[in-house]
């Protein structure tokens, strides 16, 4: 299948995707290859500063992203971002610097270059749902995820705050559900799709994370979901890696696989488990996928 128009993007994976979320990176590259969407990694990119920098030093946090934005200018196309935290930081930087001349001048002095404020920073969701389009995506689906009940989990940063990411409706987005419906899956209506998972407290205050992520897992299970889908390596870490621990604390059992969006959409387009890094998931998804005859 070839898209009607050629889509090419600069790609900013971010640190997580080169480390703990390697499967997100892998599945993203494979899915985009399958969909004929070009991704060119931004040369020499570095950390966006998420999540601690902006709490510590605003100039530093803005400058880190500004420099990355400047680097991305070398590559043709809009900037594609997979990690919700990187996406949020890059978008926030553009927003803050276009609102404040003073800060823009400070940052430009710090990075010794003009900041590109008009370039589009796009999350993968945006690229799949709008640039490629749901119709095109539906045509690319060869193995619809029939019968799979998915709880789409947005977390905090994809749509918030108002007027910054402009990805979808701030408090009631549907973009993930739209994509998954195109992939043939069933999405459940549930209460905690926008709640915080604890994100960057994962190492410093695990108690908070366990409490918050428990509420999310609980509510997904109550809504009858088979699995959760995320688009953020931090959320993934909390819901997937810590799931066993949460089960222990609350004396319960979820066995709720947590997929990246690219993994589920990849499955639907016929990519194999090896190309999607399914083996890297902590909660084993294989029993579920076999049960639903998706592998």
């Amino acid at each position: 299948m070839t898209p009607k128009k050629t889509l090419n993007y600069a790609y900013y994976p971010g640190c997580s995707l080169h480390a703990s979320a390697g499967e997100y990176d892998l599945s993203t590259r494979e899915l985009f290859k399958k969909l004929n969407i070009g991704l060119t990694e931004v040369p020499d990119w570095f950390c966006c500063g998420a999540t601690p920098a902006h709490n510590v030093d605003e100039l530093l946090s803005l400058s880190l992203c500004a420099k990355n934005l400047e680097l991305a200018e070398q590559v043709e196309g809009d900037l594609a971002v997979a990690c919700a935290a990187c996406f949020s930081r890059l978008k926030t930087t553009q927003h803050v610097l276009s609102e404040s001349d003073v800060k823009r001048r400070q940052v430009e002095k710090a990075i010794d270059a003009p900041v590109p404020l008009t370039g589009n920073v796009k999350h993968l969701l945006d690229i799949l749902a709008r640039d490629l389009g749901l119709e095109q995506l539906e045509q690319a689906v060869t193995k619809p995820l029939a019968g799979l009940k998915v709880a789409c989990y947005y977390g905090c940063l994809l749509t918030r705050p108002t007027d910054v990411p402009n990805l979808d409706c701030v408090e009631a987005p549907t973009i993930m559900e739209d994509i998954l419906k195109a992939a043939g899956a069933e999405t459940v209506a549930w209460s905690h799709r926008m709640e915080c998972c604890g994100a960057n407290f994962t190492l410093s205050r695990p108690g908070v994370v366990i409490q918050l992520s428990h509420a999310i897992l609980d509510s997904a299970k109550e809504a009858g979901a088979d699995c959760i889908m995320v688009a953020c390596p931090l959320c993934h870490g909390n819901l997937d890696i810590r799931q066993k621990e949460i089960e222990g604390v609350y004396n319960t059992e979820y066995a709720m696989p947590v997929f990246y969006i690219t993994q589920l959409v990849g499955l639907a387009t016929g990519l194999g488990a090896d190309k999607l890094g399914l083996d890297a998931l902590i909660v084993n998804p294989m029993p579920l996928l076999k049960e639903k005859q998706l592998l």
Partner: protein
Amino acid sequence: MSRIGVFICHCGENISRTVDVERVAAQVGTLPGVAFSTDYKYMCSDPGQGLLKKAIQEQRLSHVVVAACSPRMHEKTFRKAVESAGLNPFLCEMANIREHCSWVHEDREEATQKAIEIVGMMVERVKKNRVLPTITVPVTKRSLVIGGGIAGIQAALDIADCGHEVVLVEREPSIGGHMAQLSETFPTLDCSQCIMTPKMVDVANHPKIKLYTYAEIEHVEGYIGNFQVTVRKKARSVDEDKCTGCGVCMTKCPQKKIPNTFDRNLGMRPAIYVPFPQAVPNTPVIDRENCTKFKTGKCGVCQKVCGPGAVDYEQEDQLIVEPVGAIVVATGFDLYSIEEKPKGSPIKGYGEFGHGKIPDVIDGMTFERLASASGPTGGKILRPSDGREPKQIVFIQCVGSRAREKGISYCSKICCMYTAKHTMLYHHKVHDGQAYVFFMDARTPGKSYDEFWRRSIEEEEAVYIRGMVSRLYQKGDKIVVMGSDIAVGVQVEIEADMVVLATAVQPQKGADTLAQKLGISYDKYHFYSEAHAKLRPVECATAGIYLAGACQGPKDIPDTVSQASAAAAKVMTLFAKDKLEREPIVAKVREAGCVGCFYCRKVCPYGAVEEKEIRDRQGNLIKVVAYVNPGVCGGCGTCQATCPSKSVELDGYTDEQIVAMIESL
């Protein structure tokens, strides 16, 4: 040749101390056209004015310049004096040699020189002054009131009681507005319908009030004292003269499953209906969109059962032209809805409150209908979803109000008070229930208001939590309310049976279109703008149009009624005279030069410019030119500065006058 008289005032010593008045008089006396020049101690005094009048008659003066204080002080005085001496008042000008000269300079030589120039300038100006007749406009002593809520009703009754005819136009099939929907009213908890319905009946029975319900304003023409208003009376499908209001048609109508909007869709009504039992007029209307007869052509039951034969399916909209002299706009308010708003709308909905999809999350007006004895539940507080009594109820204030990120930054003013009232009504009806209120601030200025609010906490056991709610979600048959208590600094979660949102007060839908028809201005939220926020709070900048009630900004009932009576008083003041007089400083079009580009109309703040067709004797159109309606023109002159060919001219400030002044310097 003009014979100008110049009178230099000493103003005691105020002018003469720094200005050599004799020298000014002597110097100015030599100017061409000046026939008489003198100085006097107090020009504004009786002898001073006498001197002026005498000189005009004896010297046969054609124009007068009084060099004295600011024209803002005494221009009227001297123009009157000139008029009593037989000259047109607009042939008199003042030269300001006090505020603009003697008081602000110390050097006698400089001040005298400046005074000579100022007087000289006014002499050149006055030469170009023309006789301007005072403009009088007849007043039609009838008024139009738009909107039949409490504001419109009050204004209409006040004006009509004064003996002037009133045309009251209401969009809905009955008057009454939002107040008719309320259960009890703060701060006295008296029943809203008990105090409202007698007034509605007064309107219906008043010999001076002509009532159009189910009608809208189609078109407005004219200006203060002389409006022509076209009213569209929508087809009711029931002949108002024949109908006796027996109600048989409503009981027999087979289509009974139409959500009752008056009850906020909680109950059902037939296709032929009156909005509520106490409706005025008590004449039903057929809802053509939902009527089987109109949809399929079959049925016709109501016509068959109607004894007097009032049901008329063929009825059509009627356009009626009403001449009126003044207009009171009282279109009221509407409530913000948390539903998802169309893309690009500056107002945003509340996704975090479920975009209105959770059935037991209702707004304040719906709660009013639940609490009302004549409401769909007979006054019992019951959940819309399953009809159970809610034992835990959460009220959330400032939903939409004071929320810039949702597109509204103002305070809706009434919500603190009505939420306090709701907690009381709830406590009175559900004795074992608990009410919680999330609030930002409690704003209770008003007579007996704070006492009332405190009562809800101290006597009626409502729990007030200072903080906002971040999210609502359905969990089983409960609604989980996640919020924060900023006073204590903790997060709060309440499992509620029902949630009531105090949604923001917004202007009525279509407020902007009506404003455009009326030619009045409105703010970015579409609330109508008063002429002056402090000193002219009930008048529009457009003369002859007045504001009453929440169409101008959020208001409670006492404020609304006060403003309505104030608007009525303004109308009565206008009607106290048979003719309106106004200063003849208005723009006039020189038709020969006008090419009809209508730049004047584009910049006119008053909408005073109209089109006029110039035809030859055979009636062939030669051209279309601008015409300035002198009754509407405010006299700013923006048109003249904009007109490329200067074919429109502001009397009293003509190019000739101004150029003469510049050239004198």
